[in-house]
């Protein structure tokens, strides 16, 4: 069946089966930054943002259910050729190693910071507990989210450049 | 994963009715919950397709069912082998059919099943509860249908 998904502001016409998962539809649309890491909605590497405010593991939704929603993936985070503060912070803080969990982790952190712009370390750890990382031990990811929180609270243009 | 169960069921029908019921694969098959299709091979053997849900493992399982009545011993044996969705089930059960003074029948049964594949590995935690419910449903259906005869 034919559906139209709005991903990162662009409309994409896709031919999917009713059972096609959103993550497969996104990847088949050429946006391979959203990854797949498990069969049980445990790992979070497929996390995307729905309607700008909800982090969703895109393996928990059928593609057809996403029609009419705005989907943001990692490819939609950098704006105007400038990295999103979270991307910059993951880079600055060595918040990634193999990079496989990074897109999902950044999308979850993005939603976390919208709901809680100034989270404690505990709140960050809780907020990211649906996203597994096998390389970093999370410590630098927590630091990256803290840095991004700071950057987002500073007026535009005055972002920390460490 | 090995499962073992036993129990006693009182059926509101006399032993003769019970015997005629369980020697008719058609009737026995009608007691299986969520039966999707059944094919009778002979008077003892049938292949039943049954809807199964064990945790996240959901879909159709196909079972070869063999009824092996031993009226001289007042005993019936059942062997079930089959599976689906990459899972396998091997089950043997037997029941002593004991007539009661009040024209009812006591089924004194016991069974063992071995479950392999995702139904055990993924569904393992809920398998026991599901199996118990399945057994209860089968007996409830039987009891109802036998008393209707």
């Amino acid at each position, binding site marked *: 069946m034919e559906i139209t998904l709005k991903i990162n502001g662009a409309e994409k016409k896709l031919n999917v*089966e009713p*059972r096609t998962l959103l993550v497969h539809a996104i*990847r088949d649309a050429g*946006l*391979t*930054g959203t*990854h797949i*890491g*498990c*069969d*049980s909605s*445990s*790992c979070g590497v497929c996390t995307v943002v729905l309607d700008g405010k909800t982090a969703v593991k895109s393996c928990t939704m059928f593609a057809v259910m996403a029609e009419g929603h705005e989907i943001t993936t*990692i*490819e939609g985070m*950098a704006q105007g*050729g*400038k*990295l999103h503060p979270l991307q*910059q912070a*993951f*880079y*600055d803080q*060595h918040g*990634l*190693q*193999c*990079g*496989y*969990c990074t897109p999902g982790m950044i999308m979850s952190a993005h939603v976390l910071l919208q709901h809680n712009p100034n989270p404690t370390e505990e709140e960050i*750890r*809780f907020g*990211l*507990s649906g*996203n*597994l*990382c*096998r*390389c*970093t*031990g*999370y*410590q*630098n990811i*927590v630091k990256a989210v803290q840095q991004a929180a700071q950057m987002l609270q500073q007026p535009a243009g005055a972002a920390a450049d460490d | *994963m*090995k499962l073992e169960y036993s129990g006693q069921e009182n059926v509101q029908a006399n032993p003769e009715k019970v015997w005629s019921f369980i020697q008719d694969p058609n009737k026995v098959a009608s007691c299986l919950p969520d039966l999707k299709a059944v094919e009778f091979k002979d008077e003892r053997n049938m292949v039943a397709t049954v809807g199964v849900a064990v945790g996240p493992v959901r879909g159709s399982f196909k079972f070869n069912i063999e009824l092996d009545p031993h009226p001289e011993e007042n005993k019936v044996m059942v062997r079930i082998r089959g*599976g689906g969705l*990459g*899972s*396998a089930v*091997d089950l043997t059960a037997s029941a002593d059919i004991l007539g009661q003074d009040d024209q009812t029948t006591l089924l004194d049964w016991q069974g063992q099943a071995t*479950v*392999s*594949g*995702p139904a*055990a*590995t*993924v569904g*393992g935690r809920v398998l026991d509860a599901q199996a118990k419910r399945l057994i209860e449903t089968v007996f409830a259906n039987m009891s109802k249908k036998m008393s209707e005869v």
Partner: protein
Amino acid sequence: MAVESANLEPKGIQGLGKAIKRKEDPRFIVGKGNYLDDINLPGMLHMALVHSPYAHAKILNIDTSEALKIPGVKAVITSKELAGAGLAWIPTLAGDKQMVLADGKVLYQYQEVAAVFAESRQAAADGAAAVQVEYEPLPVVVDPFKATAPDAPVLREDIKGNMTGAHGPRRHDNHIWTWDVGSKDETEKALAQSEVRIKQHMVYPRSHPAPLEPCGCIGDMNKATGRLTVYMTSQAPHAIRTVLSLVTGIPENNIRVISPDIGGGFGNKVPVYPGYVCAIVGSIVLGAPVKWVETRTENLTTTGFARDFHMDIEIGATKEGKVTAMKVYTLADHGAFDAAADPSKYPAGLFSICTGSYDFQKAYAQVEAVYTNKAPGGVAYRCSFRVTEASYLIERSMDVLAHELKMDPAELRLKNFIQPSQFPYPSALGWTYDSGDYEKTLKVALERIGYAELRKEQAEKRARGELMGIGISTFTEIVGAGPSKDFDILGIKMFDGAEIRVHPSGSAIVRAGTRHQGQGHETTWAQIVSEELGLDVDKIIVEEGDTDTAPYGLGTYASRSTPTAGGAMALGARRIREKAKKIAAHLLEVGENDVEWVDKKFVVKGVPGKSVTMNEVAFAAYTNLPPGMEPGLETTYYYDPPNLTFPHGAYICVVDIDKGTGEVKVRRFVAIDDCGTIINPMIVEGQVHGGLTEGFAMAFMQEIAFDEQGNNLSSNFTDYLLPTALETPKWETGHTVTPSPHHPIGAKGVGESPTVGSPAAFVNAVVDALAHLGVRHIDMPITREKVWKVLRQAGVDSF
């Protein structure tokens, strides 16, 4: 979309010891990594596998007719079709062979039985579900201790009665090999004469590396050219190319293996798996590219597991606590095929590092491997071959000994360390340790955590009935396999290669035979070359993983990259510098002997102002050469290390235990590592964080468990638990630096030390918290339930 690299500050020459940001990150943070499943080729087919529900069964019939009726399904293959191509079985790295698809019987649950090829991922999965297989279940061997019982069912009927295996005689059809090292008689004598002796049985349970990206492969046979391109999640692409050539008969120059970005490996992506072989065979047969990406369930149930060592140790000591001798017996559960990823001569890997950091005069170790109805493997999961098991064994045992002697575990360790003056140190089991300063590292750790204060606090808490424990691990690793005289895999020597090409404008491309999976080679190799050649680190790009372009090498695992390829990188750069020096002399119009390399420039001796940079030399190498000199500035260097390297560390863990629930809370964890020279401290710290987290996972959560029928009870991430951000402790890291005397830059490798060293620290801390209750050992994973039971058995009140 091009993301501006304005924030990639120009770093200039950034050599060793600089915490520069990683060069590989810009593509990952914008979702532009290129992992295997991101690759799609025109006309590509998809493959799905049919798996066995039984752990041991005869295959009576395979009916593929229903599968072939499903729209989009192109073909189904079974062992019969593979046999036609001579690929029903393939050799394993350990000298055994394994079925590609089940041949007559299945030997473990989820074993691959058939492969279905289809036009879409969905059709392939539907096809796999429609394949009907008739089985006759056979008795199952799950417990390795029952594998060699006289009445145990024979698992490997293909080698039934053949009592000589790849590693010597076999004493039972389910026995694989027995390997030993050291002097048994002398050790037993020394133990008999020892004043104090401890014995302990401990299990290092079966675990799985479970990288977040599962394994996968695309086979792409071009029938027009006869060239086979294989994209594969492989930590060792060059070795894979050689193996593929040997098993398929395709000339090696007609095979190109590409390892794209890898989403974590941890040893899981070293072996060759049936899925890879089937995808390649499918491509050859069907003449189209074939992609196979495994599911998480397939990953956890069929690909290389780790550990599963059942160990018995006996240690002798004097009353004063000086160790005298050690004897170890280990039963290793290898599953259905011996597919352990170890160097050929070492069937039990480097397990004989089990004397650890201590000066044992006598030691003997014996390891026996057996077949069971479980998936094959035995990979070096974030460790050098079997070193995690060895380190856990000795570090756990030192605490058991301390307990027996009623001595502080730190004091016992300090009393027995190999001293700096003893290096190079010949160990009782045959290794020559390169360097180390164990006492210094432990003292830094004790100081950092405030050990004396913690012991005081513990005594006070114990008096109040509260449970707090402190665990120490002062491990020594053995990594960097390895010297070609001892180390090979399938006969291929374990050296590694580096190629450096300096371009006319002073930029460079560097390639290595290793393949990173998150370790940061694109940054650290560039730093080594920047240090050695004085080139801008920004202008050096690093490429790995394409066998058509990179020099041969054995790959990245067992912390071997820095000891091998890192050495090749430094020595290759130095070879370039020798030629550059001649060009510099030409440019400076002086004799070669009048030029020296100072502050990353060529300077005329005694005339500091007169110098040329490597950039200028690079340009001259293509434009203005001394007469008769070969143009260009590049080299390929193969480095065969003279010895292994021996990183070490001192880890201290503090835990608090909830008496009511059995919950163990890791309050603090200090890790002081000594990996020799540090190339990039930021990356080293990141490696330590990650390794500690995997050690934590093994100590408290991860286990691949089976029921009596051989059902794998840990087949997905809801049953095989990985730590999340929430339960992962906060790590406190630090280091001492004892360079390796034989490595070109003194580096030893670090990626695995924390996984190797930390499990014992966690377990020691938990046991220490419970020691006064009579607890001497608890096997991993230490779940709440286990601790709760121990507490109830010891009669401890909940409140």
